C-alpha cells in the first residue's frame, strides 16, 4: 500500500537534493534555476499528496497556481540570466562576485 508518507519522503528527498544542488553547483547559473524548480516540485508533491489523502481539492488548486507562478518566475529568471550574460559574458557562478564584503 502506498501511504502518504511515502510521498512525503519522496518530496523530502527532492527538496534536499534541490538544496544540495544549489550550493554544489558553482559553474552555471541556469543550473541554480533548475534546482529551484526541484524545490518547487517537492512542495507540489506535498500538496498533491495531502490533497489526495485529505480529500480536499484546494491543495491541487495551490499546485496549479504554483505551476503558473513558476513559469513566470522562470521567464524572469532566464531574462536576468540573459542580461547577466550580456553584461559579463559569463554565467559562471564563480565569476559573479563583484558585490561582496
Amino acid at each position, binding site marked *: 500500500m502506498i501511504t*502518504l508518507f511515502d510521498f*512525503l519522503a519522496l*518530496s523530502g528527498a527532492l*527538496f534536499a537534493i*534541490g*538544496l544540495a544542488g*544549489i550550493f554544489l553547483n558553482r559553474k552555471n*547559473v541556469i543550473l*541554480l*534555476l533548475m534546482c*529551484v524548480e526541484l*524545490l*518547487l516540485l*517537492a*512542495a*507540489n508533491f*506535498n*500538496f498533491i*499528496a*495531502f490533497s489526495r489523502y*485529505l480529500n*480536499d481539492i*484546494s*491543495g491541487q*488548486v*495551490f499546485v496549479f*497556481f*504554483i505551476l503558473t*507562478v513558476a513559469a*513566470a*518566475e522562470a521567464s*524572469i*529568471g532566464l*531574462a*536576468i*540570466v540573459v*542580461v*547577466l550574460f*550580456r*553584461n*559579463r559574458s559569463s554565467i559562471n557562478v564563480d565569476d*559573479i562576485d*563583484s*558585490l*561582496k564584503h
Partner: protein
Amino acid sequence: MDNLPSFAPIIPEIFVAGMACFILVVDVFLPDTWRDVTHWLSIATVAATAWLTFTMSENAPLLTFHDMFVNDQMGNVLKLFVYLMVVVTFVYARGYLRDRSLFKGEFYVLGLFGMLGMMVIISAHNFITIYLSLELLALCLFAMVAMDRDSPVGSEAAMKYFVLGAIASGTLLYGFSLLYGASGTLDLTTLGMHIAESSLLNIGIMLSLGFVIVGLCFELEAVPFHMWLPDVYEGATTPVTLYVGTLPKIAIFALFIRLLVEGLGGLKLEWHLILTVLSVLSMAVGSIVALMQTNLKRMLAYSNISHVGFILLGILAGTTEGYRAAMFYVITYVIMAAAAFGMIMLLARKGFEADRLEDFRGLNDRSPWFAWMMMFVMFGMAGVPPFVGFFAKLYVLRAVIDVHMVWIAVVAVIFAVISAWYYLKVIKLMYFDKPPEDAKPISCPLEMRWLLSANGIAVLALGILPGPLMALCAHVITF
C-alpha cells in the same frame, strides 16, 4: 453561482491593477520626452488609491472572496504608508532616473504592480493569496533590480536576489504544504483555530513552522537569511534600492502578524524563541558589519538588518503592545530610510552615484539645510532623541521589558550603541570634513527638495510628537 463575493473591500486593488495596465499601455505610446506624463499619472494613481482606501476603510474587518482577502484597519493604515512611500520613491526617482536614461515607464508599471503585491500581502488571508502576492511583489522587485540592464552589478544583484528569493519562496512553499497537510486548510483563521484546538504539540506543525519562518525572515531580511541584502542594496540603482530595500517591510510586517499571530498564534512559545535568536543575530551582524563599510548603500543595508532585529523584538514580545511597537518601528524606519536614500539621490548626478560615504564629505559646507536633514536621519536611525527612531526603539524595548526580557533589551541597546558609531561617521563626514575640491552644486527637481525636506523634518517632528502615530498603531492593532 449563487452569489458573487463582495467587491467593495477590494476596490483599491482593482483600481491599481487597472491603472497599472492603463499606464503600461499609455507609456508604450509616449515619446521619451513625454515620460513625465507616466510619472504624474502614476502618482495620481497612488493618490487616488489612497483616497479609495481611505474611503473604503471600515472599523470592523471585512473578509471577502471566500475569506481570502481581509480588509481591516491595520491593513489600511499599512497600505496608506505603502502608498506614501511609493509616491516618495517616485518623486525621488524622477531626476535620478532621467540623468541615467532609465526614466522609463517600466519602473512605474513595476512599481505599481509591486505596490499591488504589497497591498495584497497586507490583506492576504489565505496561503494561496499569501504565496501569490509574495511572488507578485518578488517578481516586480527582481525585475526592478535588474532594470539598469547595462549595469554589471545590477544584473549580478538581480541574479543573487532571484536565486535566493526563489529558494526562500520554495522553502516557504514547502512550509505551507506541510501546514496544509497538518491542518487540512489553507485559511489562516481555520488554521489558527485548528492549532488552538490541538493541545498536543504537533511535530509536523513544528517542522512547517521552521520552513515558514525561514521564508518570512528571508523577506524581512533577518540574519542568517540576509546575505542577499547588501549586494542588492549596492547593485541596484538607488531608487530601486529604496523601493526594494524598505517598502516591502511594511507589507512583510503585516504578513508576520497575519501568519504568526493570527495563524500560528498557538505556537507563540516556539516562534518567540526562534525570533529571539534571529533578532539578536540580526542586531549583532547588522551593527557590527556596517561599521567597516565604505559604501553608504551597503552600510544602510547592514543598518537595515540591525533595524530588522529591533522590529523582531517587538514581534517576539508576543503582546499587543509588542505588535504595535513593531508596526511603529516599521513605519518610522521606512520613513527614515526613504529620507536617507533620498539624500543619496539628491547628491547623485549623471556619472556620480554619491553612494560612497566619502561623497558626503563636507555636505554642511555645500548645503547646510540638507546636511541638517541627513543629520536628522542619521541620529534618527541611531535612536538618539528627539528623533523618531528613538521612540521606535523605546517602544520595542518597552515591549520586551514588559515580558520580562530585560536581558535582550540590554543586548539591544548595546548594539544600538555600536550602530550609532557608523551613523556618527556619516555625520562626521558631513560636518567635520571639508568638501572635495570638485564638489558640484546640488541640482535636483524642486519637488524633490521639498519632499526630502518634509521627509527629514518628519523624522524630527514625529520624534517631538510621536503620540498620534503611536495612537494610530494602538488603534489598529487590538489583538
